[in-house]
Every structure is written in C-alpha cells, then in structure tokens.
C-alpha cells in the first residue's frame, strides 16, 4: 500500500515539474515576443523620423551664410530672433519690443537675424507653423520679409485652430506688395519647406527650446523689454 502511495506522489511531483517547465517556457517566449515588439516599435519611430527629414534645402535670398535665418540690416551687433508665427508670446514681444529693434537696425547699431522656427506645429491642425515659415521664405525671395512678418503677427490665428490657409497667406503677401503669382506658386509648392526644417533643427541644436528666444551676439538675453534689448545691444557694441 505504501509503495503505491509513493508512486502516486512521485508521479505528481513529475507532473508538477513538467507544468512548471511549460510555464517557464511560455513566459520566456511571451517575454521575447514583447521585447521584439518594443524594439520594432522604436525602430519604426526612428525610421519614420529619418524619412521625414529632408537632406537638401535652398535658403531664400537674404538669408545668412548658414541659411538659418533672414538678415535685416547691417549693424555691427547681431540680434538673433527665434520666433514661431503661431506663438502668442512672440506676437506680444513684437508689439512691445518690435519698434525698439527696428530703431536699432535703422540707426545702424545692430542687424537682426530672424529665424522663423516651426516649433508649434502641434498647435494647429494644418502645420501652420511650417507653412507660415516657408511662406516667409517666399516673402524674402520677393524682398518683403519684414513686411510679411509684421503682417503675419498682426493677423495671427489662435493656437489650436487650423491657422490661416495658403490662400489667406497669399492674400497677406499680396497685401504687402508681393507679386501674387510668383509668391502664390512659391507658397503652394512649399518651395521653402525644407528650409524651414533646417532653420528649426539648427535652432534646436543651438539650444533654443522655446519661442521667442532673443540672442545678442550669440548670448541669450532673458530681459526682452525695450530697455533690456537696448542695454544688451549697447553692452555688446562697446
């Protein structure tokens, strides 16, 4: 009797061992599968991003040598402005300090390098940041970058909206004196979309993480008030 009991017990131990082994294998294979899924997901993200990036760009006339912004004026001190046409704080900044910067440029104290970065594409449903920045390249081609920029900030659409349509951008361009046919086809063809990407990526590389960012001779200036800008330019010009 006791030997049968022992046999039964031994069989149960073997069954349990087999079950444990089976469970271990199942866990191993589901884990391997899950890791493969995660790695593939990461590679998909990386390759999607790489394929979205364009390698070549054409900078518009009036851009700096690096092709990262449009130059206004010829003064000895360089003011770098990084702005997104959709950014409400940029609009405020233009309203409060735009005139001061204009004066610094027209009096020959400073030149401005305006970087129309597309940081806020997620805040419009139509990638307005990229479209408006590329359109500003078209405006630079037509020699009206400053006028077009001022008009875009004056008619800034709200964040979260569809932004202005290409037709509206073209009308604004025509309103500041651009040739409607040339400018219109440039906007519609997205001639400067790759340039916008280059401007945006270069700004990120330079540590510009938000808009507006103001630099005077390469140093970030946190006081963006008229007095702050004037003081920074005076100090840099000495």
């Amino acid at each position, binding site marked *: 009797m006791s030997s049968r009991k022992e046999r039964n017990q031994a069989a149960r131990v073997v069954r349990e061992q087999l079950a*444990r082994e089976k*469970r271990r294998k*199942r*866990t191993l294979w*589901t*884990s391997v*599968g*899950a*890791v493969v*899924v*995660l790695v*593939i*997901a*990461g*590679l*998909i*993200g*990386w390759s*999607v*991003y*790489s394929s*979205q990036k364009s390698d070549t760009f054409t900078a518009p006339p009036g851009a700096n040598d690096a092709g990262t912004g449009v130059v206004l004026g010829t003064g000895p001190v360089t003011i770098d402005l990084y702005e997104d046409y959709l*950014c409400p*704080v940029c609009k405020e900044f233009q309203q409060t300090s735009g005139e001061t910067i204009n004066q610094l440029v027209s009096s020959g104290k400073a030149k401005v390098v305006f970087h129309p970065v597309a*940081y806020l*594409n*997620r805040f419009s449903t139509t990638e307005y940041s990229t479209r408006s920045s590329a359109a500003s390249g078209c405006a630079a081609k037509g020699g009206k970058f400053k006028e077009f920029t001022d008009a875009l900030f004056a008619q800034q659409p709200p964040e979260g909206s569809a932004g202005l349509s290409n037709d509206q951008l073209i009308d604004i361009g025509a309103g500041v004196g651009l040739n409607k046919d040339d400018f219109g086809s440039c906007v519609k063809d997205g001639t400067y979309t790759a340039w916008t*990407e280059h401007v*945006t*990526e270069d700004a*990120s*590389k330079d*540590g510009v*993480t*938000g*808009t507006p*960012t103001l630099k005077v001779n390469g140093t970030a200036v*946190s006081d*963006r008030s008229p007095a702050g800008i004037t003081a920074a330019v005076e100090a840099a010009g000495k």
Partner: protein
Amino acid sequence: MGVTAARTPAGRWPVVRPRLGLAARLGLAAVWLFAGGAKVGDLAASGRAVNAYQVMPYEVATAIGAALPFVELALGLLLLAGLATRLSAGISAALLVVFIAGIASAWARGLAIDCGCFGSGGQLAAGQAPSYLPEILRDLGFLALAGFLLIWPRSPYSVDGWLAGDPPVEEDDDE
C-alpha cells in the same frame, strides 16, 4: 466584531486583487496610449522635448524622441492585451523612473521646461511657471500601477491568462 472586521479585508483580497490588477493594467495601458498618441504626430517636436532636458547630445535626443512615442504605444497595446504583463510593467516602471529622474534633474538645474510627457514640451514662455512637483507626483502614481502589476501580473481578460488556460482568479506567483 473586531475580529471579523480584521478578517474580512484579508478574506476578500483574492476577489479584489484581480479586479485591481485589471484596473491597473488598463489604467497604465491608457497612460501609454495617450502619452504616445499625443507625441506621434510630430516626431521632430518630440525630439525637441527630449533635447530640452539637456542631458544628451542633440542627435541622440532626436533619435530617442522619435522612437519613444512608438515604444509607448507598443507598451500600451501589450498592457491592453495583457501580454507579457510582468515584463511590460517592469519596462513601464523603468521608463517612469527615468522620466521622474529627468524631471527632478531639470528641476534641480533650474531649467524652465515642460516635461513633454503628453505632447507639448520644450522651454516655457516667460512668466509660465514649470509644474515639476505635480508632474513627478503624477508619474509616481503611474509607477504605483506598474509596481502592482510587477508583483501581481495576472489579471482577468488577459492574453497571459488565456495562454495559461487559467481561470482569471487563479493564484499565480511564479510567472
């Protein structure tokens, strides 16, 4: 009465635990699906959000920023299906620890950035205060969900349970 009051919660634990497990699993799945979904539409911006932490070179930050939304979505789907739950919970916990460390270090270094956890991200406009503490507390809450699943990965309506052929409430401590 004191004895029954003390015994009841312990007696109900086997019934409550699978439900809590299911809630934790679906909750954490939702977190990852929302976090990944918010970022997947603009991978360049996701890279900028990572770069804003200033802890790695720009090229590395953009590669991680591009891969992260897809990894988050995949983690969310694995948890939603309940496949390799313990491993997914472990990876979730590891990611959350990295995020919390990143936010804490941004805080300690005095950076003024948005964590970029659910889209947005990058430097804040002047006058906008960063909300590091709520972000860290929120991530700690998510970490608690992941921790629960690490300890008790088995929950009802999961592929893991189906593969094991278990009734959903079975004790399973050696997965």
